[in-house]
């Protein structure tokens, strides 16, 4: 049996898994970015906030995903098989990854540009939204791409605790000693990761027209 015949036989299941995998990886990315932006901003604005925040983020990232999936229901009061646990765990990883990226991206804004903004009469908030965040987009997008790919693959680990998504193809292949579902799972995970990567890349290009012009020169 090859992956395609397997796909034809289990089309509904596989498509459902693909969709679950997509939102379980994608939603944490959006929520994680929303949480990481203010924390990263604080870490870039106050020098003393940066070391503890970055250290904490690093530690969070080292927690094994399986452990987090199992511990979270106790902390959140959710059921052990609830997909929410996976989404929350991946949000934690996304935040852990992006906090440092956001802080470093804001710190890397050319001081000439932010000084000029101050001297022109920008308030701190206007400067952040009008100058610093737009200039931080390329670096944040690069971090987001790493987080997206890592999320897509981390989701599959959740099949071990019984949350059905593309990872279920691996467990099934393992149980039935068949390579077809495993191969199909691999292909779909890679394709999903590439789609996420492409969407972020495209969004970043839309947000940074000035970089395209300069490259084209």
């Amino acid at each position, binding site marked *: 049996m090859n992956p395609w015949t397997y796909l034809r036989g289990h089309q509904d299941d596989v498509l459902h898994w693909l969709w679950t995998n997509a939102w379980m990886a994608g939603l944490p990315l959006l929520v994680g970015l929303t949480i990481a932006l203010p924390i990263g901003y604080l870490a870039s604005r106050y020098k003393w906030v940066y070391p503890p925040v970055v250290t904490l983020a690093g530690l969070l990232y080292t927690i094994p995903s399986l452990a987090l999936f199992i511990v979270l229901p106790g902390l959140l009061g959710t059921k052990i098989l609830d997909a929410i646990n996976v989404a929350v765990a991946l949000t934690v990883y996304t935040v852990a990854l992006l906090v440092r990226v956001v802080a470093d991206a804001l710190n890397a804004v050319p001081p000439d*540009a932010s000084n*000029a*903004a101050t001297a*022109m009469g920008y*308030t701190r908030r206007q400067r952040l939204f009008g100058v610093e965040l737009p200039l931080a987009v390329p670096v944040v997008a690069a971090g987001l791409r790493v987080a997206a790919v890592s999320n897509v693959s981390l989701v599959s680990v959740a099949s071990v605790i019984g949350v059905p998504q593309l990872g279920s193809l691996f467990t099934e292949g393992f149980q039935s000693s068949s390579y077809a579902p495993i191969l199909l799972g691999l292909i779909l995970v890679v394709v999903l990761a590439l789609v996420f990567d492409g969407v972020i890349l495209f969004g970043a290009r839309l947000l940074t027209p000035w970089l395209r012009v300069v490259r084209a*020169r």
Partner: protein
Amino acid sequence: MIRFESVTKRYPDGTVAVDELSLEAPSHEITVLVGPSGCGKTTSLRMINRMIDPTGGRIWLDDRDISTVPPAQLRRGMGYVIQAAGLFPHRTVVDNIATVPLLLKHDRRQAHAKAMELLERVGLPAHFAKRYPAQLSGGQQQRVGVARALAADPMVMLMDEPFSAVDPVVRAQLQDEFLRLQAELAKTIVFVTHDIDEAIKLGDNVAVLRVGGTLAQLATPAELLSRPADSFVAGFVGRDRGYRALGFTVADALPVHEEATVALGSELADAPGRARDGWVLVLDADRRPEGWLALTGVPASALAGEVRPDLLNLGGTLATQGGTLREALDAALSSPSGRGVIVDDEGRFAGTVSPSEVLARIEAHAEETRHAPAEIAVI
């Protein structure tokens, strides 16, 4: 008018950047703050728009104490130009220029129209409007920086070493255009530089600061060159002071002599009859000097054909009638014939002058200055 009243900036670690500085930058004039690094010139500039707050003293903008004005509001009324322009890399040239009007919530279309006008005013073509800063050269970026500072038509302009990141040729060009612009706009400008030559070229008034943030001398450029307040200023102002000071004295009453000339393209054989001391001045069709033709030791047989540009000696500089003594002396000293060429405002030949005549004029001028009231230094 901007007035510093015993302004001090002391940092928590005890370093004093500016120490009891009192000075006045008059309205509609360029006041240059100049000094070695560590003299507090940039700190002083940044205290004017409250990028840095002083720890002592007051700064007045006309009759307002600037510490009573909210910083963002104060800054929107002051143009600011920094070294390397500091343009926003993510905005087009026209959006960069329109920054402050848009901050002030001016109509977008009007702000852009004004930005286009300023683009032209600083000497950039209109099609640059949609470019991004990285597509511009350093000098072009600096012009955009100046346009951006002018966009909201501020009374005050603060300029922090605006021309020091470009090469000397572009710098001289930017300086000349800056002076031309200021002649039209008459802003109150405070200009920071470490380059004394730039200070002397641009300043109506020059404040020389010394390390530690104290004022060594505040004077006009001519006074700074002719009467440095102390050995620090004298040393900082540098060599050739006497010669450079001549650049501030108008060479009026110079005796200008008639001179026989030949036209470019005329018969070479006619030249010897018009030469004096073996040299004859060659003019073009509009009577503009082209160069000197040497005739000493040239056999008559070689004098065939026309007076061509490649035969001319171009060593001499030209001085304008009503120009400075420095120009006149330079023209006289550099001329291969020993006779300095004077031209009128249109660049047409007006006559010649000898070095000794210029020197006589310099001596007469020095005589007048010596009899001017002097400030006696008490040591």
